């Protein structure tokens, strides 16, 4: 019984939250990795592009709520996401046409493109704050919990409750569907294959008749979809605040590099690596040991490896270690 309780405890406080958070990071990391693999620059506007997409999701959600459309138990935002994606893709293509294209055509070094992306970051951040403001916004509606902690306790008779938020389930499901579609697209379709070829060797791909304009456009479209959905899921699960989104750029970068930048599958797993290590290392295991160990050996302190203040620091330290020992990431990067 104690063992079961301990397992449920870990599931409730570590496994489920980390899985949801990891999925949100994974989507962002794939976004970063795609841009890096095909357009060949580190996109510092990642966090703000995600907040831009989320902003449209929120605006559409508000609109639907005001006209009385809802999805019942599901959050209305799910209905708003497709419309937000359309606007987001428009914005991405607009930025590409007026900003990034010039440097791509001139074959500027990646560092210059990264600098340009900082300019885009400033502009996007300003636009988001001017349109929706810098404050914290919650746009979740519908059923909040799939299983409530109290119900679970009653159902199983255990001491520990397991609470699963519906947003966590939605996040994980949507991520799985989206990522598997993406991998199917990259590995099986002709366009996907030409994208991989372009990422692998640009000149060779051009020689074999691949149209770079089309590749770039599709990359931005996929990136727009990933950014909007990733951002909206994060906002549903936690809340939307432009500053938090900007900060999320950092663990996302960490996930992309840990997984091997340019490698979407690596980025996907990297998201979970970062999320799990952040939560595992900062969780206080006291209760867990109280269940598992006999009473005489009960720990005195919180049995916390690091205080939760160092949540971000954990993922960055992992990144530094990975960069030192395997600069190409855990799953060999730079092959799309």
């Amino acid at each position, binding site marked *: 019984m104690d063992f079961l309780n301990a397992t449920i405890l870990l599931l409730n406080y570590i496994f489920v939250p980390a899985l949801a958070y990891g999925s949100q990071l994974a989507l962002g990391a794939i976004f970063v990795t795609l841009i890096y693999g095909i357009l060949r620059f580190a996109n510092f506007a990642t966090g703000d592009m995600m907040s831009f997409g989320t902003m449209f999701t929120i605006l559409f959600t508000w609109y639907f709520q005001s006209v009385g459309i809802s999805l019942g138990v599901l959050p209305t935002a799910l209905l708003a996401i497709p419309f937000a994606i359309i606007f987001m893709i428009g914005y991405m293509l607009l930025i590409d046409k007026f900003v990034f294209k010039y440097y791509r055509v001139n074959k500027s070094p990646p560092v210059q493109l990264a*600098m*340009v992306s900082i*300019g885009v970051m400033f502009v996007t951040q300003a636009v988001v704050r001017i349109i929706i403001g810098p404050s914290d916004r919650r746009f979740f509606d519908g059923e909040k919990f799939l299983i409530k902690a109290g119900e679970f306790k009653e159902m199983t008779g255990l001491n520990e409750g397991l609470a699963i938020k519906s947003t966590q389930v939605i996040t994980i499901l949507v991520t799985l569907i989206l990522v598997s579609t993406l991998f199917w697209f990259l590995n099986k379709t002709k366009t996907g294959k030409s994208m991989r070829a372009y990422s692998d060797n640009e000149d060779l791909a051009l020689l074999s008749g691949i149209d770079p304009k089309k590749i770039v456009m599709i990359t931005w479209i996929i990136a727009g979809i990933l950014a909007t959905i990733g951002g909206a899921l994060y906002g549903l699960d936690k809340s939307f605040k432009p500053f938090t989104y900007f900060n999320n750029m950092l663990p996302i970068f960490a996930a992309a590099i840990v997984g091997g930048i340019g490698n979407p599958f690596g980025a996907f797993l990297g998201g979970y690596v970062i999320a799990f290590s952040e939560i595992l290392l900062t969780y206080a295991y006291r209760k867990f040991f109280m269940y598992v160990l006999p009473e005489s050996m009960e720990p005195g302190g919180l049995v916390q490896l690091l205080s939760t*203040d160092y949540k971000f620091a954990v993922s960055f330290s992992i990144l530094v270690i990975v*960069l030192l020992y395997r600069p190409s990431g855990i799953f060999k990067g730079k092959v799309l």
Partner: protein
Amino acid sequence: MRKNLNVIAAYGIMMGLIILVGIFQSWNIALSIFNLCLISAVMTMGANIQWGYAGLINFGIMGYTALGGLAAVLISVNPVQEAWNAGGSNILFSLFLIIGMVLAVRYVLKKYEKSKIRTYIIATIIILGIIIIRFVSEPGIEAIEEVDPAKTGFLGGLGLPIIFSWIVGALFAGGLAFVIGKVALGLRADYLAIATLLISEIVIAIIKHEDWLTRGVKNVIGLKRPAPYEVNLQQTDWFINLVEKFNFSKLNLISDFTERQAALNQFVIEGSSVFVKLCYSGLFLIVVIILLILTQKALYSPWGRMMRAIRDNEEAANAMGKNVVKQHLLIFVLGSAIVGIAGAMLVTQDGLFTPGSYRPMRYTFLIWVMVIVGGSGNNFGAILGGFVVWFLWIEAAPIGLYLVNLTTAGLDDTHALKVHLIESVPYFRFLMMGIGLLLIMRYRPKGILPEKIEIK
């Protein structure tokens, strides 16, 4: 003289703008803008040495700034005797343990060939060391943080004049840069950018949460000043006389004695804060000029030539027998040290240390905008960038307000759109910075004052 005309013109316009602010808004605002411009200029000089001279991208500016600020606290605050008694010995012992750990790792690195076993040994040493240090330091940290937490709750500093912290801040930042450089300089440019950005976040996390050292988010306020206090100035005779002399003509217009006295008092109060700011401006100006002379000398020295050679073609420089790795490390440390000075200067001017205010937007990316806009590789350009961008950053809100009022002139004052836009005026500065950066990158990629190398 003629070839420097654009430099002189650019600086003239900049000074004119600040003087205009002084005339139309107030001299207080103008001087505080000017002071922060000077501090920004020091930061951009640091970043410019790394980026402009050597092509090293360093997104960790925020971390070095914060370390410089920390130096200001550790140098100038009086030591908290009780805290030292409570937990000082534990902290000192932990410090020795850390040094011992580093030495042990170094010993293993030197003694054994690179192998898997060596990696594991090092990992074990580090993990064991961290666990032991935590056991030793925990009671000490708790004891220290319990000493009068509302006022102190930290070890305090050395109680020296705060000016010393400018040098110590440089040492701190340089030391950190040395460690980061050893670890990360081998990375490719964009990896280096991300790595330094993340490491600076780690530095901020440590400063924010190690309360025994920095007081964390409780902030340290009321730091000593290198300049006189306004309150003291207002009671000093020579200062009152000086203010009287300055405003002689205005005061003479007032015939009534009490009114004249009241007006004088007003002038003294205003004058005192202007005077204090002028003191700071003088100090900062000295630093900027010294750094400018040194960096200019370095730029035209054989060493500067070598740095440009390394920047423009690493392999060729390497083939000529230049030690690229060592020079990169050197310039990384130098540039970061300069940023550390700026960090200490900033805290000196504010008189308070607020770890929560260090954000990458303000302390990393904005500084980079300054470097790019001003002109990388050109020290005059870097300083000008600091001035222009900081000036716009501050004046963006009034300009934004003016523009909003202009474009929505046809709308009613209570119109929702107009109200919303006026509320979001503070964010126009981001828009302005972003568009400015994009335009400069596109149409003048070398900045306002581009790099110009004369062969002498």
